[in-house]
């Protein structure tokens, strides 16, 4: 069964057609890369899957359950079990690294002892266990990116969406972090939808590539 299924999705923003009749299935455990130029509707597609906006036409299914339909968000974002790494990382500036991760687990009602253990393990996985008390502003770009990744994964979601998370980093760091993302995905086994306009990142990360242009899908295939 597909982890995510988009059925005839159309979306207008401020009267402008952004996505037109999109049909897409993402298999469980896949690393799907959405590739396309700026303004082609990649981010809007992620926001639709996350449940921040509703489609104007069509339906969205996650794990077989309908989560959005035309003009309506059926399942709100917090009940979709999704992790999201934002383009600007969106680390909460008034919270330490530990608190950034803790908020996610606390919102799910996890007991304190279990939270502590889970956060420790997650920070070890991304190589940040010594920086848990730092504030986001005290971290380098690469460290911030790893915190954002840890926060998206700490609740062990089955689906993780990433919106050009490496775009602000230099080439070496990007390559290093792309490898780390692949490793984490293999270890944890989540389904990943990764948005980029960078072909090199696509080559490193994708098991499935979807090419978008002007709000439509121009190509969809497994990576050889």
């Amino acid at each position, binding site marked *: 069964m597909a982890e995510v299924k988009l059925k005839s999705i159309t979306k207008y923003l401020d009267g402008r057609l952004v996505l037109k009749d999109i049909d897409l299935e993402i298999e469980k455990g896949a690393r799907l890369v959405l590739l396309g130029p700026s303004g082609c509707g990649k981010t809007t597609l992620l*926001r639709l899957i996350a449940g921040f*906006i509703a489609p104007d036409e069509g339906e969205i299914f996650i794990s077989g359950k309908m989560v959005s339909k035309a003009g309506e968000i059926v399942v709100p*974002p*917090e009940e979709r079990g999704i992790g*999201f790494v934002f*383009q*600007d990382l*969106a680390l909460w500036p008034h919270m330490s690294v530990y608190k950034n991760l803790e908020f*996610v687990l606390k919102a799910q009602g996890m007991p304190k002892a279990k939270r502590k253990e889970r956060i420790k393990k997650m920070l070890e996985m991304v190589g940040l266990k010594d920086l848990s008390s730092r504030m986001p502003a005290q971290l380098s770009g690469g460290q911030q990116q790893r915190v954002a990744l840890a926060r998206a994964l700490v*609740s062990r979601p089955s689906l993780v969406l990433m919106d050009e998370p490496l775009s602000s980093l230099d080439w070496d760091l990007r390559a290093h972090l792309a490898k780390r993302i692949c490793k984490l995905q293999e270890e944890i086994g989540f389904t990943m939808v990764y948005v980029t306009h960078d072909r090199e990142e696509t080559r490193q990360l994708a098991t499935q590539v979807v090419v978008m242009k002007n709000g439509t899908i121009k190509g969809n295939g497994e990576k050889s």
Partner: protein
Amino acid sequence: MIKRLILWAAALVLFISGVLPVLSMFYSSLLLDGHFSFSNYLHIFSSEREWILLKNSLTLAFLVSLISLFLGVPLGLLLGKADIPFKRQLSLILCIPILIPPYIMAVSVDNCLGQEGILRLFLPGWVLRSLSDHYFGLGGSVFVLSTVYLPIPMLLTICLLKNVNPSLEEAARLCAKWPLVLKEITLPIIRPGLTLSALLVFVLCLGEFSVPSYLRYQVFSVESFTQFSAVYDFGSATAQSMPLAVIALLLLVAESRYSRKNLFLSTPLVSGTKRLEIALGKSRPYLFILVSCLAFLIVIVPLLSLFYSSLDLSIYEEAIKVAGDALLRSFFYAFLGASLLAVLGFLSAYTIKNRQIWCWRLVDMTSLFLFAIPGTVLGIGLIATWNNPWTQFVYSSLLIIVLGYLARYHVLSSRIILSQLHLISPSMEEAAQLAGAGWLSRMVFILAPLSKRAIMAAWLCVFLFCLRDTDISLIVYPPGCETLPVRIFTLMANGSPGLISGLCMLMVVSVLVPASILWHLRWRR
């Protein structure tokens, strides 16, 4: 060279119109019969009455800031972030009290509670009598001033919410419901702004004179005004104003330090991205009714009562006869003040944004301080500065009122225009510079047109504040230069209630027309 000259001149106008009066007032409070003396201050600290006045002032300011914050923030969240219907209209209605002279709200509520008031149609006599008995004093002052200053935290919350990076809330929404997101993410991020709004209400309340005076609640600002206007004890009036000025200064310094430590910068919204809106679901109609009832009770009912008690054409004919000239003067002074402040605000905003002169931070802090100190303090200071044989042309003309406006409302124009200048990329000016345009050309042909809407909004906002100004005008107005709020306030002692209501309605309408234009501009943005 010309750039520095113009920017320094703009800063100098602020210092001459605002800082000089405060300093010269402080200096004159240290003189007794031409000799240096602390006796005015010693009198304040040794008199029990002065301590009671201080306690009353602080109690009033504390209660009003607490109430307006606890009502204003939830209202700001509902009207700025939730899908409540008619949010623009409700926001405008709730903002009316801050746009009119505060004492008009006091008169309106008094009208409601009076024997001929509109509430007698709905409430039994004993309830009205009981409410009326409690109205004069602390209770009434807190109610009226909370209504007047409620829009400050409400509007600031709405504006601050627009500055929160949307992805911070989206990241939280992926795992938590709205109440937790607001509590743990949104409100902590905008907390410095909310603190500023509470402090602003506190210091504005501390200096508020007309409402406590009307409702006979003894506070420092009323006493200071009485000492000055009735007894003409300049030294005492000044000394009594100083504690308020010092409290305002200390609070602003503390706030500035706190904000600098806790400021979380946000990124502007990427075009095409929509902010998340709180879907109220089933509670939507109930919350709409709740907010509407609040707006109806604290704004519409008092103003309707004012209208009801002036329902006679002859009242308006008399009102125009008595105060027509004052109304025209009010418009002219406000026009002059707003036009000068639009230019000064633009230059100051440029100075602050680009740190063009070494005292740019002082310009920013001074303008905030001059807004926060009581109008009576500034008014007495202006008289202390300009009432001498060489400067009679200022003291005895409209110039002294305009100088008061320049000092008091400078911060409004500079902050509004500054927020726009921050959105203009520096490369716009750099490109013009590379093309050979001089500084003046760049200002006139590049920055001013790009900031056109902000300049217009600043002009209208300052125009409204000048139009409603009572505190400064009442103290400094020379003979023949009365403004409408001053004329109404002076007539209140012996004018007929019907005429006073008519004059107050005239004032309300005069303010609401430009306010509606400003509102339209704001929402179109």
